[in-house]
């Protein structure tokens, strides 16, 4: 477990910034405690100072996961955000997409969101903008990337993809062995 280097921090913040914009500083600088990012076996974890001190006393081989995993660095040093970060991204999300109840299940199975399943979308969403996907009851389901901007979404035909799937809460069941 070690702190992130400059380059790694930049990569992580850039990725997070796509979903929550400048609200990252609310994650870095919290009023209710000091939280930090740590790297353990190529995975980035977000944990409080208290937990950090506890985790420091665990030998590296036995340590499974200190804190919440935000994502991991791939072999080519790209940062990939994982679903376990949703709880921290959802409250600060800038661009949101609401999905109709009929296609909730489809999204939770890992499919993209089609225009026919789109309920609402935040105004001014740019194309390829990171978005957080909600159900109509405002329950965060996962996140994705907007395939079309809001304007285009209005014009496009019902079977076109409007949100590319990146992560959904169904992964807790599908990938339960590999999630940390």
């Amino acid at each position: 477990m070690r702190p992130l280097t400059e380059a790694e921090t930049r990569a992580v913040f850039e990725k997070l910034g796509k979903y929550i914009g400048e609200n990252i500083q609310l994650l870095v600088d919290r009023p209710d405690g000091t939280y930090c990012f740590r790297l353990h076996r190529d995975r980035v974890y977000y944990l409080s100072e208290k937990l950090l001190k506890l985790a420091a006393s665990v030998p590296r081989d036995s340590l499974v996961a200190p804190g919440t995993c935000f994502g991991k660095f791939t072999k080519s040093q790209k940062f990939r955000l994982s679903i376990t970060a949703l709880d921290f991204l959802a409250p600060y999300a800038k661009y949101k997409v609401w999905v109709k109840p009929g296609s909730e299940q489809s999204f939770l199975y890992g499919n993209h969101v089609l225009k026919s399943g789109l309920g609402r979308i935040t105004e001014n969403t740019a194309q390829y903008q990171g978005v957080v996907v909600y159900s109509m009851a405002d329950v965060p389901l996962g996140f994705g990337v907007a395939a079309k901007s809001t304007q285009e979404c209005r014009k496009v035909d019902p079977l076109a993809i409007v949100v590319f799937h990146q992560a959904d809460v169904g992964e807790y069941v599908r990938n339960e062995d590999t999630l940390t």
Partner: protein
Amino acid sequence: MAAVRVEAVLAAAEEQEAEKRRSITVEKELELEFDLGNLLALDRNPPPAAALRGAGPRREALLRALARDNTQLLGIRRRKKTSLVWDEKKKKKKRRWGYRRAGGDPARKKKKKKPAGADPEEDQFARLRREKRERVARNELNRLRNLARAHRAGSAVPAAPLHPTGHQDREELRRVARVARVSTASLGRFQPRLPKEPAEPPSRSGGKKRKKKKKKGNLAAERSRQLKLLQDMGSKKPVLDITRAVNKQMRQEEAEAAAHKGKKQSQRGKRGRRQQRPGRSGKKSGARRQQQKPAGGGTGG
């Protein structure tokens, strides 16, 4: 007398043949279960219980016969490989091994048309032969190089000679050059560089070692560093937001189109207005438009 003997001999031979065939054909009530990966055969036939009772030569013989029978069923059969195989591409039979397996001397092949752009004076057969020779030579060179590399990797190399031997490869020469540079009175610090030498000496560990930082360290300092980084990243975002500009343009066009249609519909009257386009109602989009767009940020990525 001779005839009788011949008959007897023939009968004996036939008997032997039958015996041999009997010894390889086995009949079982229940089919055996085979695990071919482990060469295992499971015989679920009920054994003759009476005969197995009590140790003794009879039991042994019975078990041996059982084992032999089952082994026959598991047996490996000889598949005679034909020496010629059908080549689909060339519609001919080729040998699996031996003479002209890989095709043979290209110069002996049938007449080919000249490949496009070939020199009319050039001898195609000679060219093919020469190319094959070059390919073989290259292959051989690579093979020897591989051997050398493997051999070097296998045995811990004793100190390589520092003078040029003519048989050194790139890595060795680099190492030697580095040693030579450092072997001056000031340990290479004021040594002028050769024309193509890299500017700063590459680190001995190849840039892998990193300064060990304390894990807990100074969290406050880390936080301030990260906030500063965020500030820098935020300030670099472009001021002109292309998507926003495009959206604005599109909205303008839509508004114009709607206005134009509105004129037509008002001419048509009540019926026209009822068939308005969905999604244009003011409640949802109006509420969302109230959201402030942050200054310059948010959509750069």
